[in-house]
């Protein structure tokens, strides 16, 4: 094996950054299962503590999303929605998106954006539906 992930930062905790009323999370590299679960817990606490209305999760540095991580992302979105915060997943790589679709995981409840700027724009726009757990809104 090589030293590839011995020095990886993902064995610990994913930092949650606060930017006004938005929480910003950047996931890098391969995530340990327990780190992903820890993030899910941290985020619901952070949303409550900060009163944030939006959560932006940047996964442009993530090389694979399997059904476990997919589920964690979907649950983060659902739980944030219950706490009146909207979650946007940002920067999914083409190869990851293609794989998720083949896997059968289209994550219909998840809002997505190409970049963090696009996500912040989306969060600034009038909220299309305040209904908790509402599916992603289709444009006309």
């Amino acid at each position, binding site marked *: 094996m090589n030293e590839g992930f011995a020095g990886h930062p993902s064995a610990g905790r994913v930092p949650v950054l606060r930017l006004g009323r938005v929480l910003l999370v950047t996931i890098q590299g391969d995530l340990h299962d327990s780190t992903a679960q820890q993030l899910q817990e941290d985020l619901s606490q952070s949303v409550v503590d900060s009163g944030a209305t939006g959560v932006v999760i940047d996964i442009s540095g993530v090389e694979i999303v399997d059904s476990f991580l997919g589920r964690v992302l979907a649950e983060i979105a659902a739980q944030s929605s219950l706490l009146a915060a909207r979650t946007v*997943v*940002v*920067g*999914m*790589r*083409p190869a*990851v*998106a*293609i794989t*998720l*679709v*083949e896997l059968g995981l*289209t*994550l219909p409840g*998840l809002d*997505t*954006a*190409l*970049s963090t700027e*696009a*996500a912040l724009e989306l969060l600034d726009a009038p909220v299309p539906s305040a209904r908790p757990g509402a599916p992603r809104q*289709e*444009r006309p």
Partner: protein
Amino acid sequence: MPEHVGDTTPGTPTGQVRDFLRGRREQIAQRWADEPLFRAVFTVSRDEAVEAGKAVVDALAEVADVGRVEDPDAPGFAPVRDQLGRMAAARSRGGLSTGQVSGELAGLRPPVENMLLEELRDAPAEHVRACATTLTVLMGTLRVLVMQTALSEGQALIDRQRLQLMEVATPVIKLWDGIVAVPLIGTLDSARSQVVMETLLEAVVEQRARYAILDITGVPTVDSLVAQHLMKTVQAARLMGAECIVSGIRPAIAQTIVHLGLDLGGVITRAGLADALGYALHQLGAGIFNTTSNGTDQR
């Protein structure tokens, strides 16, 4: 085949051929270096051709040594496999058909056979015949090996060209800031749709395109497989944060889709590329004005 072919103790035909090849290595290689097959590849120096010839003789001796004269997969051939492939490829480039290359390979045998017959001048006729047969089989195996290598290289070339063709046939056009389009022309099979999907999604990232238009005007038919490919592309784009619009659904195709009961659920569709572009521009907040007539005609 004589049953003693696998036996490689000295004196048996296979053992005799092996010893002959090892003993006459230099002479055989010298003789082969003058053959067009070797000359065509090793154009710089004759010594190089001789060295290459020795490597082939060594391989043949090695294969004879383990008694696998009929086996083109014998490990003994491994060191010369690439070299033989290059030689066959060079002859093909020189304009020779596969049959002609095979003929040139066959031409390597007679000089070696003559040397063998000369060496066995005083041996019993039965033994000479058995040795000659073994050598013929061994050289035939070499020919099979080269042909296999040449054919698989040909196949690899075809595969590469097919892929290049698919990439060329899948141009991604930037229509506006944040809008890209792929006009699809021709049949959409699994391999092609994979290329289309990857090309489009890469363009979405590079161009930061929020809207991607898949124009299927040039796709002759839409069956369930094509619909499935379209759906996958749309879903993958959505996961990345972009919206796909499928345009160019001709009336006949619309009917087929309805008849087959295909579900394009949630996919935004438009009749033509222009309508799709108009929709995307509108979504991006850009207005279209007609300045020649009344000037304020906004779509």
